[in-house]
């Protein structure tokens, strides 16, 4: 496979770097002061035409590749800012609605996700499970032309922001059937919806992740995404893309950790010479670099498959299984490089380390992905 970075790709990287350097500091400053995203974050993204990467122009998107999007995310990852999370969410949910939705659904719900008026959400996780569709307890009960939604979704990103979310619910009209989950597009300001406070997280500073509770929330049948019973499949396809995007962000995080470690090791003098010249440290740098390079190649390979329209779900799971411990190790090593400074909030490496920890538990857990990869290998006929 050929990963030549084309002139377009290079310009994307340049634009992303420019955005990260000139726009993210103000976003970060707001998030630090308010422990939340700036209210106009989606407008900022829309103004810079960063929403709808893989959505056709007729629905307000840009109509380019997922590859270009993950290059953008990789640059944003280098800033260690959590603001890439809503960026990924609007892009991936808009693409998901485009993939599964009827013409009417696409026309109604996709443009607001691209023009910055709506914040996207994708909600599956509940108090009792983040992995098993059979355990879902949020129910959708048919009532005339509507469904009535009841239940709680847990750890939901951007649940308390205005706009639409895709909510995977147990469809009571499919009771007794094997595939009984349905995806509903729900306006998050509908009557009957309430949200908890934000969770205090290890990393991802400023993230608004919270619980969202539905009490007799009325949703028109026309808001069903795809067909009834397809809810879990919609989630799986979405999350396969999300894992790659998340991993691309983490490659950026790892790259920044490497850059910081390298810079420090050329400055800090130990035993009369810059510490980087000690074999223990340059070996570490070498290891970090190789790990990063392997992660990057794996992410690029998976996204190329996605762009080529091939099945990429297992590749995406492999990406999570490989890159999660690698990037966590690279950021941990960067903390070691900087010694006590690395463990202090004065330097960015501790933030990178905490940020890298989220990859194992958000957008499906590491173990679930090992299960996907392992079971696929076991069941596959080819050797």
């Amino acid at each position, binding site marked *: 496979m050929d990963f030549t970075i084309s*002139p*377009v790709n290079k*310009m*994307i990287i*340049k*634009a992303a770097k*420019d*955005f990260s350097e*000139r*726009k993210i500091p103000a976003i970060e400053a707001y998030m630090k002061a308010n422990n939340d995203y700036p209210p106009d974050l989606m407008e900022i993204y829309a*103004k*810079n*035409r*960063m929403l709808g*990467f893989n959505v056709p*122009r007729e629905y307000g998107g*840009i*109509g*380019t590749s997922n590859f*270009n999007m993950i290059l*953008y995310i990789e640059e944003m990852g280098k800033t260690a800012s959590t603001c890439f999370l809503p960026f990924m969410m609007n892009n991936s949910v808009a693409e998901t609605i485009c993939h599964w939705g009827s013409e009417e659904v696409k026309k109604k719900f996709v443009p607001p996700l691209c023009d910055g008026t709506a914040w996207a959400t994708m909600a599956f996780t509940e108090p009792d499970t983040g992995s098993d569709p059979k355990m879902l307890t949020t129910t959708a009960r048919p009532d005339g032309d509507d469904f009535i939604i009841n239940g709680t979704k847990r750890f939901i990103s951007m649940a308390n922001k205005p706009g639409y979310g895709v909510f995977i619910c147990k469809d009571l009209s499919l009771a007794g059937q094997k595939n009984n989950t349905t995806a509903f597009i729900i306006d998050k300001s509908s009557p009957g919806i309430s949200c908890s406070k934000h969770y205090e997280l290890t990393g991802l500073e400023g993230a608004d992740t919270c619980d969202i509770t539905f009490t007799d929330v009325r949703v028109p049948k026309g808001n069903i995404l795809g067909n009834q019973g397809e809810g879990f499949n919609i989630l799986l396809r979405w999350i396969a893309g999300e894992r790659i995007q998340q991993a691309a962000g983490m490659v950026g995080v790892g790259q920044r950790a490497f850059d910081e470690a390298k810079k420090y090791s050329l400055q800090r003098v130990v035993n009369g010479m810059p510490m980087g010249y000690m074999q223990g440290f340059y070996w570490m740098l070498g290891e970090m670099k190789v790990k990063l390079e392997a992660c990057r190649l794996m992410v690029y390979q998976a996204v190329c498959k996605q762009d080529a329209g091939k099945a990429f779900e297992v590749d995406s799971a492999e990406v999570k299984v490989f890159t999660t411990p690698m990037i966590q190790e690279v950021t941990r090593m960067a903390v070691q490089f900087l010694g006590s400074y690395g463990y202090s909030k004065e330097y960015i490496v501790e933030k990178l380390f905490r940020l890298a920890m989220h990859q194992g538990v958000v957008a499906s857990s590491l173990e679930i992905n090992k299960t996907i990869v392992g079971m696929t290998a076991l069941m596959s006929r080819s050797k």
Partner: protein
Amino acid sequence: MNIIVCIKQVPNVTQVKWDADGSLIRTGLPTIINPVDKNAIEAALQLKEQHGGKVTVLSMGPSQVESALREALCMGVDDVIQLTDRKFAGADTWATSYTIGCAIQKIGDYDLVITGVEAMDGNTAQVGPQVAEYLGLPLLSYALSIAVADGKVTIDQKLGDVARVIEAKLPALVTVEKEINEYRVTPIDKLIDAFERTIPVWGVDDISPDVVHLGLKGSPTKLRKVYSPKLEKGKVEMLEGTPDEVARQLVDKLNAKFLI
């Protein structure tokens, strides 16, 4: 309102190198759009957003200026024109301005020309004013703002510690300062479109100039030598004693050098 913006591609270094003949060694240096010229593009795009019309960007230089023009397209300008011809090479500011002036005459239909105040490599700040002179346009230089209304353009002109408001009838030429705006981050849709475009290249035959005024031969300025001035390393002397004593020593030393 149709606006023409002139941009220069410059090497992205502060300490450039010259060869034995005093010519800039460009090979191997990464190039960028002269930074203030991005503000010129931004100013033009903002005026277009207010008044409609179209923005055309012009650049003279060797074949690699294509990448600067591509970047201008990425920012969202409507058209670009690349002025490349061996006969343009080696131009001083006069010949550069003449060539750009001929190209602008060829484009013909314009209300405003915008340039940066100065290029970060040549630093003469002459091209804008000379293009205005050649085209017989009123010149509004050092702009901190541009407003257009009723066939007139008004700018706040930066003059050291003071600013003054000047206005002129259109068509006119404005040179802009970097403080005029913050240029936009490249919008991704324009970026993608920019790579679908072919960039037109104009040579001598396209702008029908008087060839004796072109390039090195047409340049009245003869460059004798370009060099980096030698930097003298500063000597540091630490004064010792109580604050009073140190102050006295310092006054004596400054007096001895007739500095106070």
